[in-house]
């Protein structure tokens, strides 16, 4: 397929519809609105349904219903909207409803509620964090496949910069031959025993003995561990072989970090980077490999330190982990302010670099 020049939100919408998404619901909120407009356009020609819901709570519950019928469905919003959707997001994991949730963040302040979940109970969303328009298109396609494969919700952690960036993009299909038929879907009890899709005890057939709540919850705990160990993780790494300092960043912030690392290399600083593409589960192996070779790790994210907690748990004190991020803000409040300027980033890199043991300063 030929490449097209598309805005991030439009590429994301097109990719979702190509992946077979036929239901989308959302409530207008910037910077999610562009995706909402694009989905309305795409689904009107694809024969799907795009709902401008009356509230965030309604939007996510509509997606719940649509996805429960076995159709591919997508929901999206911004951080504030996500807070309002938490109740359903939590229980949709419990009910094992596969769907894709696109979080069009204003900055990166919602790593925690996206990855850890802000709703009640124990749950995890498989998380992908694209940093280019092409990657966003690829990951959305992959997200629908992963959701169906593991029968679980998948989160795309996108952002304001990605939404508005225009880049050349190519839509590539994903091999979905190994997906099983959705026997769990609620489609009316024609020719089979009726079944119930419950967030309390999952899917059960009325003909079979009821699963006890306690046993079901035990299974849920095992399921989180299963996903953590079996969902393929992805990472983008650079200059980590001889790096004394490894900078870790995800999403649009990583795009700036990658550029700044290249500049630092020109200055002679031995800095590398690891960019987690799957933010849950995190690419532990790549992070640990890079950390083991380095003298220190620095985490750059556009918040007051959220992913840094997880990185510390992975590195487990083998090398110091520094937090060098900051909430970035401009007049618009969307998080593209001065904290993310390359000279400032380089300044932060140098500060951490100074703290490394003397051997690191070019004498090795």
């Amino acid at each position, binding site marked *: 397929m030929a490449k097209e020049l598309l805005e991030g939100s439009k590429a994301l919408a097109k990719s979702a519809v190509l992946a077979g998404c036929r239901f989308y619901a959302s409530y207008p909120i910037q910077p999610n609105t562009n995706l909402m407009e694009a989905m309305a356009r795409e689904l009107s020609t694809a024969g799907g349904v795009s709902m401008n819901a009356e509230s965030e709570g309604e939007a996510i*519950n509509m997606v719940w219903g649509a996805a429960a019928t076995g159709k591919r469905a997508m929901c999206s919003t911004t951080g504030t909207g996500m807070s309002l959707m938490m109740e359903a997001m939590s229980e949709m994991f419990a009910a094992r409803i596969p769907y894709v949730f696109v979080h069009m963040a204003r900055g990166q302040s919602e790593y925690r509620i996206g990855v850890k979940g802000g709703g009640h109970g124990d749950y995890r969303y498989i998380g992908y964090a694209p940093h280019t328009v092409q990657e966003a298109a690829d990951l959305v396609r992959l997200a629908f496949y992963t959701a169906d494969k593991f029968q679980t919700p998948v989160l795309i952690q996108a952002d304001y910069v990605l939404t508005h960036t225009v880049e050349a993009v190519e839509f590539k299909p994903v091999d979905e031959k190994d997906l099983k038929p959705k026997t769990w879907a609620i489609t009316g009890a024609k020719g089979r025993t009726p079944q119930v899709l419950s967030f309390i005890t999952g899917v059960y057939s009325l003909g079979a003995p009821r699963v006890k709540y306690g046993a079901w919850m035990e299974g849920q705990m095992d399921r989180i561990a299963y996903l953590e160990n079996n969902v393929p993780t992805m990472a983008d790494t650079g200059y980590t072989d001889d790096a004394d300092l490894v900078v870790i960043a995800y999403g649009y912030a990583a795009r700036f970090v990658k550029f700044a690392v290249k500049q630092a290399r020109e200055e002679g600083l031995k800095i590398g980077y690891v960019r987690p593409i799957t933010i849950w589960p995190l690419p532990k192996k790549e992070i640990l490999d890079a950390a083991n070779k380095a003298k220190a790790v620095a985490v750059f994210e556009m918040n007051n330190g959220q992913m840094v907690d997880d990185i510390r748990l992975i590195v487990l004190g083998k090398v110091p982990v520094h937090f060098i991020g900051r909430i970035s803000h401009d007049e618009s409040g969307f998080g593209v302010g001065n904290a993310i300027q390359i000279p400032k980033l380089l300044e932060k890199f140098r500060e951490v670099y100074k703290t490394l043991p003397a051997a690191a300063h070019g004498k090795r």
Partner: protein
Amino acid sequence: MPISKEELKRVWSLPNKGSFLQPQAVHHMCPGCGEPMAYRMIAEVMDEMNLRERTIEVSGIGCYMGMDPTLNIDRINALHGRAPSVATGVKRMLPGHFVMTIQGDGDLVSEGLSEALHCAARGEKFTVILLNNTVNGETGGHMTATTLVGQKTKSTLQGRDADIHGSPIKTAELVAQMDGTAYAARGSVHSPVAIRRTKKMIHRAFEAQEQKLGFSFVEIMTMCPTGWFMETWEAPKYMEDVMTKYFTLGEYKVHPQLAEIAVA
């Protein structure tokens, strides 16, 4: 009289003949509860209209969840108050199916009124059944948005005071005002006459969905002697004398195309 173990065993071993009512139609509702009668009517109307294999029920959160396994249909459990939104997603994806929600007054009127009203305004082509017993029965008898002024609950010990707690909401009348509504009515299960009338209301509501006329809504007043703190035999009389004086029974909106189905 309690059912003996032998009798239960016999009932459970009956073959499932494809009827809406499950042979395991044993529930654990309190004595005197009106909800089983509402479920019985819903099941009967569905059998009469031969809807079983096309039906998807979205249930809310309340006592009536314990009644759900008695229905021989596919079902989705929704969160408290959110069933109409879930049903929207289901019906939009499977427009040929028969979709209904069963919700209580705590679920629909207190927690999820906006969802229900927006669905009515959008003219969503599914049916909402509201089982209104004016208390949060499952939590143990607390005030809901439909509790009558003066009615004692565990959270309004001196009786609901309009100055402090506000006044009850008449949902059927509210839904009837929406342009997308094809049918809105309020029935009750306190007497044989009321039951027969309510069954016809359910019939009309389901017909409204089948004919794709718009949103259909039936509010069914059910007795809750446990939540009303009275004896089981006093509850139907209280319903007749007090409750239906405020929550007037009747049809509030009937689409012209539904007129041929007579209601006694």
